[in-house]
């Protein structure tokens, strides 16, 4: 096992990979160091995130992180989603990520914040 069973599983079979028809918020960003690219699409309702999908051209860590984040963001109030941090993801990923790869974990968080900011949902 290279990283963790969660990362392998989410990389091979992501649950929230794809497009969201009629998304309310879309944001995409890249990590200039390694070229990871993540795009997050959100459906918003009643001050919360009703649904989330991601797309990406990225490494296994980043793919797994984005997939988990989409799962964790769904059903959360915007404020709660914005409060999600690297530790929440690292706990779920269950792997020791070395410092040089930590941006692979945090890129999806940055993109989620960007998506919420783009529609004025983030204060």
């Amino acid at each position, binding site marked *: 096992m*290279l990283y963790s069973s969660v990362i392998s599983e989410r990389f091979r079979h992501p649950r929230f990979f794809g497009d969201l028809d009629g998304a309310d918020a879309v944001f995409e960003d890249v990590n200039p160091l*390694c*070229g990871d690219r993540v795009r997050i699409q959100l459906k918003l309702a009643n001050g919360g995130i009703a649904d989330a999908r991601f797309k990406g051209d990225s*490494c*296994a860590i980043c793919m797994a992180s984005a997939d988990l984040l989409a799962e964790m963001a769904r059903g959360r109030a915007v404020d709660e989603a914005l409060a999600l941090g690297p530790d929440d993801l690292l706990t779920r990923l269950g792997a020791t990520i070395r410092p040089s790869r930590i941006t692979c974990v945090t890129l999806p968080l940055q993109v989620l914040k960007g998506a919420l900011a783009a529609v004025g949902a983030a204060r």
Partner: protein
Amino acid sequence: MPVNVQRLGADFYAFSGHKMLGPTGVGVLYGRRAVLERLEPAWGGGEMIKEVWIDHAQWNDLPWRFEPGTPPIAPIVGLGAAVEYLSEVGMEAVGAHEQALCRLTLELLAKNDDVIIYGPRNPEIKGAVVAFNVRGLHPHDVAHLLDQEGIAVRAGHHCAMPLMRRLGVVGTVRASFSVHTIPGEIEFLTKALSNLNLML
């Protein structure tokens, strides 16, 4: 590759220490004397002046004119040792060794259907590097997997993002060789690559 700057007729020739067994943070900029004599110094500092008056100064002779301030003495001594070592081995021999390793790498990698090789296939027109990708895996994951096996490669866009875009990839993995690399290590690399998909 042996380099003769005079035969090349180069006005300038630059190289960095860490790419030839030397320390980081040190390199050489060769300049043809006739060109250097016409150049004004870009930086001021100790040793680049001969005499100073209140309203003007006379620059020092070459090469001090272009070496102001306290130099990184230890890295320069280290680079000197690297140059001595490589000169002893002989750059012809270094080139032949690296070319043979490059040929072997290209041969062995070509046998793996999951490996996509980039760049020329003719070792005679290549440096001692081979860039590749493994189908279905991100270059950084490949690098991490190889690292677990004790193999150091570089992964990413290699400071050439437009080229990566042109190739339609996020990046590549790059194996590079030096005088210390032996054929057994290339076989080790290619064997590790054939087991990669099972590891992630």
